[in-house]
Every structure is written in structure tokens, then in C-alpha cells.
């Protein structure tokens, strides 16, 4: 179980994450929602310790992981696999090697640096790719792949880490709807099949409703909503998203969503052209 206790992340004057306390039980699929800049990304990055929390503690099964360093920190990172919006693969390496980097914490340095991956590691990486239906892409360079394929490679990299929890930071925000479904389905399958805990930042409320069994709403760095998706009424969502509400609620566009600089008539004129 992941327990966050009074965590804040302060950058200069801004409190990107402000006194957040949460507990995530094993096997949960939790969506973190909120408008851009609400602190969702910083929250996830702080859990992986890519960002140092300024205050507060993070516990995993009673172990304080917010004070780890060196080898122990790397082992914690291995246990909480990150998936990024921009995939963060190494474009110049082939897909198989990208997935094998997920085995770095399992492999002694002299082996991995010489690319002498063990037969087990290779088999695990190929099995992960096979499970996401992209085993045939293994020898290709990662930057030759489409966004949806790259994100699936990133999920494979996360899986072969043998993590306890997957932290997915807007995993589908750069993808088209079809690929977004494929990627979210994959995360759901991993969650259901292996009981993997998933903490997933999502901008789209539709996806959050469809896949998560609990939603955490953030605004200005604070947790302002924490309940099952069904409890998120339209009014609550409007409050959570503010100006962006219509966009995520799929409502018909109104004048209010247009940028301030565009006169009300301009949009309809433009579409007539």
C-alpha cells in the first residue's frame, strides 16, 4: 500500500503540490484528474523521486521511501515504474534494448553496459513485447515507431522492471483516440490480470470514468476530490476544471471557451471559409 503523508513540492514561489495526503491500496486503478498545472505530474514525479518532495513522507508498505538514496533509491524507482506522456524512450536504440533498460536494476553494471543481457532478460523482454502485440517491432529503432507503438514499448519497459506500482503520467495525451484506447486497455489488463497497482494522470474525464475505480481530483496542488468515479457530479467536475470544464465534459462549444483575443463572430466566419 502506498501512503502519501502531507507531501508538498515547492519550486521558488509556487507550491506545485500542496500538503497532499493519500493512501492507495494494492491492486487499485486510481486516476488523478484536474486541469493543466494542477500538480498531477509533479505528484507522480515526486513519487518516483524524479522531483524531490519539499515536505512530507511517502511510505510503501511501512517503508519510508522518501528518504532513500543511492542503491536503495534506485531499487524503489525499479518498484514504481514510470510511463511518460512523451514516452521518454531512447530513440536511437532499438525497441528490444529500450525494453531491456527496464532490467537495469536487476542486472549487474558490467553486463548491462556491455549489452550482455542474460537469456532470461531477453526472454522476459520479448515476452512483454509479445503480450502487447509488438514483438515483431523488436529490432526496429524506437524513433521509427508511431506514438501508440512507442507508448506500448514504454509500457513493456515498465513491466519488465517487475514493479509494484505503475505511475502513468498522461500516458495517452499525445495519442489519437484509437491508440489511447489500446494503451488504456493494456494498462487495465495489467491491473486486472496481475493485480498491478496503477496510478494514472488523465486529462480526459471520459477515460477516467471508463477505466478508473477511484478518482483523485487536484486543483492548485491540493486534493479536492477523492471518491469513486460515479460520485463526480457534473457540478463537481465543473468546479475542478474551471475554464477547461466544457472541453473535458464534451459539451457543445460556447463563446466562453474561445480565447479572449478572438471576437465572438470570428470563429463562425473562419469555419465558413
Amino acid at each position: 500500500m502506498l501512503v502519501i503523508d502531507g507531501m508538498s513540492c515547492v519550486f521558488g514561489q509556487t507550491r506545485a503540490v500542496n500538503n497532499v495526503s493519500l493512501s492507495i491500496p494494492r491492486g487499485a486503478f486510481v486516476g488523478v484528474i484536474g486541469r493543466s498545472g494542477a500538480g498531477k505530474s509533479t505528484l507522480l514525479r515526486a513519487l518516483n523521486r524524479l522531483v524531490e518532495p519539499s515536505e512530507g513522507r511517502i511510505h510503501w508498505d511501512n517503508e519510508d521511501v522518501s528518504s532513500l538514496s543511492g542503491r536503495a533509491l534506485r531499487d524503489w524507482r525499479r518498484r514504481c515504474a514510470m510511463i511518460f506522456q512523451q514516452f521518454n524512450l531512447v530513440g536511437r536504440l532499438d525497441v528490444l534494448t529500450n525494453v531491456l533498460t527496464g532490467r537495469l536494476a536487476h542486472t549487474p553494471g558490467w553486463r548491462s553496459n556491455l549489452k550482455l543481457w542474460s537469456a532470461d532478460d531477453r526472454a522476459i523482454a520479448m515476452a512483454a513485447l509479445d503480450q502487447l502485440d509488438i514483438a515483431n517491432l523488436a529490432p526496429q529503432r524506437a524513433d521509427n515507431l508511431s506514438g501508440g507503438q512507442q507508448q506500448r514499448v514504454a509500457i513493456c519497459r515498465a513491466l519488465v522492471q517487475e514493479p509494484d506500482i505503475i505511475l502513468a503520467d498522461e500516458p495517452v495525451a499525445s495519442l489519437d483516440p484509437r491508440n489511447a484506447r489500446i494503451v488504456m486497455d493494456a494498462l487495465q489488463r495489467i491491473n486486472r490480470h496481475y493485480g498491478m497497482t496503477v496510478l494514472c494522470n488523465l486529462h480526459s474525464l471520459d477515460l477516467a470514468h471508463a477505466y478508473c475505480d477511484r478518482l483523485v481530483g487536484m486543483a492548485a496542488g491540493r486534493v479536492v476530490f477523492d471518491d469513486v468515479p460515479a460520485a463526480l457530479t457534473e457540478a463537481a467536475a465543473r468546479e475542478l476544471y474551471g475554464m477547461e470544464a466544457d472541453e473535458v465534459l464534451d459539451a457543445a462549444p460556447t463563446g466562453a471557451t474561445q480565447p479572449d483575443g478572438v471576437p465572438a463572430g470570428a470563429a463562425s466566419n473562419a469555419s465558413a471559409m
Partner: protein
Amino acid sequence: MTGHSPLRDAFLANRDRIADQHAALLDPGWRSRMGTIAIFGGGIVLYIASFFLLDMSLSNLIGGFRRLADIVGLMFPPTPETWSRFYLYLGAIGQTLSIAFLGTLLAAVLAVPMGFLAARNVVANRLVHLLARRSLDTIRSVDTLIWALIWINVVGLGPFAGVLAIMCSDFGAFGKLMSEAIETASDKPVEGILSTGGSRFAAIRFGVVPQILPVFASQILYYFESNTRSATIIGIVGAGGIGLHLSELIRVLEWQQAAFVILMVLVTVAAIDQISQRLRGAIIGRRR
């Protein structure tokens, strides 16, 4: 290491099927590994063999260390002897700096059009491209020192020959580096500019130049620093600057003064490094 996580077991459960389907990927084979080992091993053997072939003996070096220690001993304390000598050296360092600065700047300015001509993604004409490449190669294959000897015969002894020497050798290097930077620039911004109805020139001006500017600027700054050292060398053959004084001092065994001049060069290069680091930071700018 965790021995038996459910994920690991699940992945390894399919092992036989995976091994059947993707045998080549699972086992890179002894051929590719032997290839890597052979290249590394061969390289090491070649390196050691060349020491014997060229008759380089380690005992000469060890025996010579005593004399090196003597020379270093003679260098202390470094001193210019008189104030008038100090001002003389200071002026000469200034001359060296000017040679490096003027030479580098001239080379950079001339290399810009040449770099674009030599870039495959800018000039489609293969003949132009080939000519530009080959002429850059030709110029670059002659070292700064040789250029200095040539220009001394053309324009006479002095700093002008030094400027021309640095300009020539760096023109070749800049042209090559720049054309390579242009070739690795992404096509996407170019496409973006063309899609707005911009001209081919505008696409280069707004799509390519902002991408290569930071790379090119940091190369120019590094070359300026490096040329300050090169200018010392070409000074020795008579192309102006501190090098002439330095070689003269070593020839007459004035080790203390030579050490002082070396220290002056060191301080100058360190100062340039500091300044160019700031400039580089300002030019590259922060992303965000």
C-alpha cells in the same frame, strides 16, 4: 533481487513459444559477439605493435624524466625579470589574442555560405555539393602551421600572416562542421515554415538557422579558445604574437621567463574559457 514475482513467472511461462518465434533476437549468436571482441582485441594488439614498430621505448621516457625534472626546477620562480619585459610580453599576448579573434571571425563568416552549399539537404545539386565538399576538404587538409609558412612568404612576417593562416585552416573546419550541423537539423520546422507559404530561403532562415545557431556558436567559441593556443605556435614561425618570444626564450634557456610567459598564456586561455562559457549560455538560451 526478487526471485519470483508473478510478472516474471508469467513472462517466462511463454518462454518456449517466444524462443521459437524470435530465436534470432533472443540469442545474438557467437558471430556478432566474436565480431565485437575481435575488433576490440585487434585494436589493442595493433596499438601495442605500433610501439615496437616505431621504436618507441619506455626506457627512454623513464631516463628522460630526470631532465624534465631539471627543466621544471630551472623554471622556478617564474619571473619576467624587468617591468619593460612584462609589458613587452603583455603586448605580444594581446597580439596573439587579436590574431586568434580576427582569424576565427573571418573563418566563421566565410564558412556560413560554404556550409550551406555543402549541406545535402539545402543544395540539391550534386555537383555544387560535391565541389563545396571537396574544396573544404582540400583547405582543411593543410594545417594552420603550414598555412602560416605559406602566408609569411606572401604577405611577409607578422600578425597579418597569422590571421590569414588561422582563417584558412578554420574555414575548412567550420564549413564541414556547419554543413554537418545543417544536415542533422530536423526537417519538421522547415516543413512548418514552407506550409505557411514561406520561400525556400525563409525556410532556411527561420527553420534551419535557429536550430544550428547554438551548435555553431559554441563551436566558434571553442575554436577561438583553441586558436589562442594555435596562435602561440604559429608565432614561433614568425607570424606574430607571443610564440616568437616563447621560442626565443626556450632557445636561450631562459627557463624562468619562459615559465612566466607560459603562465600568462594559461591565464589568458582560462579567462577566454570563462567568458565563452557565459556567452554560450546566453546564446543557447533556456528552453521552457
